């Protein structure tokens, strides 16, 4: 099938403002949007720039705004979108070139919540054991691939780029509710600020945007509740 790709392009070295470029591509209905983008790059215009790595919905590098919604280009099929297909860079991040955005601020916030196991107690002889129920407590938030789809779908983040954002909170949640971890208080203190969890207005855009199906708003609500019950 023939599909019209409308791609928002921008080269900061040449263009004064972003513009829409249109490409007609020949694809199979079961091809992904990523295949259509690669077709453009390989056969029509080699200057088109976008990120992709594993191309199987795990690495999280090809999140972009496709037909007005944040999705992974490698996870959405052309036949489910029809023609034309519009592709734009994620909203709220500075554009480096075409579909590539600067995610440094995003990862700085991720690092701020200490997304690693904190436990100074001597490890037992074998391993730190955990029951299936204790593991299930934070199972949902282990699925995050840090693609940035949730944070860049969040109106609170658009309104104030200093907001720590849903992705960082999800990754804090993953350790806060881990029975082996001892750093919950540190992380909760980091999130207990105006630009932390309290910026969340429960808009649910993050839930809709997450390509991994994480119930992001619920995770944020659980962090808020943990703050409430951890004493003030």
């Amino acid at each position, binding site marked *: 099938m023939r599909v019209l790709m409308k791609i928002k392009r921008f080269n900061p070295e040449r263009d004064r403002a972003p513009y829409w470029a249109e490409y007609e591509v020949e694809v199979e209905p079961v091809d992904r949007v990523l295949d259509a983008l690669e077709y453009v790059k390989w056969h029509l215009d080699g200057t088109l720039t976008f990120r992709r790595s594993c191309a199987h919905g795990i690495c999280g590098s090809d999140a972009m705004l496709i037909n007005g919604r944040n999705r992974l280009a490698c996870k959405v099929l052309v036949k489910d979108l029809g023609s034309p297909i519009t592709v734009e860079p994620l909203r709220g991040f500075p554009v480096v070139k075409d579909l590539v955005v600067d995610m440094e601020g995003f990862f700085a916030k991720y690092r701020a919540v200490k997304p690693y196991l904190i436990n100074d107690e001597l490890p037992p002889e074998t391993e730190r054991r955990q029951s299936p129920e204790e593991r299930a407590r934070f199972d949902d938030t282990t699925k995050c691939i840090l693609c940035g789809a949730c944070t860049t779908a969040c109106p609170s983040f658009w309104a104030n780029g200093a907001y720590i954002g849903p992705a960082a909170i999800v990754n804090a949640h993953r350790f806060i509710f881990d029975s082996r971890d001892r750093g919950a208080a540190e992380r*909760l203190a980091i999130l207990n600020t105006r630009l932390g969890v*309290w910026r969340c207005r429960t808009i649910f855009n993050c839930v809709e945007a997450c390509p991994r199906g994480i119930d992001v708003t619920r995770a944020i609500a659980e962090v808020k509740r943990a*703050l*409430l019950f*951890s004493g*003030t």
Partner: protein
Amino acid sequence: MYAGRERPTGGFELFAWFFMRISGLVLIILVLGHLAIMHVIHTVDEIDFDFVARRWGSPFWRTYDLVMLWLALLHGLNGLRMAIDDYVHRRGWRVVSLAALAVIGFVLLAMGTQIILTFEAPTGQMASGLP
């Protein structure tokens, strides 16, 4: 699982968030009750000065209205504060709009509270031709 751990400081935002939840729940009951009494059971045609005076003769209804006034106003003001927080970025405009919000909120709360607490029904001639 947080017991015994170092406790993070709560702060105003935590309190504001919790207040919004609780006041929202209480307001659903209060406002629906208010709506039923003042607009369904009694219509605007039969509500006059006498009606209000009789109603406020009972401390129950005064308390009811006072709680509803405080919760509804503070709930709404906090919502507006968040909207300003999100959309007003210029420092000068922020200060002006937040200050205006605080002043308007204080004046409305003070006026409403004063009326509810100090209202005195004129004795004797309640059913007469008062406005």
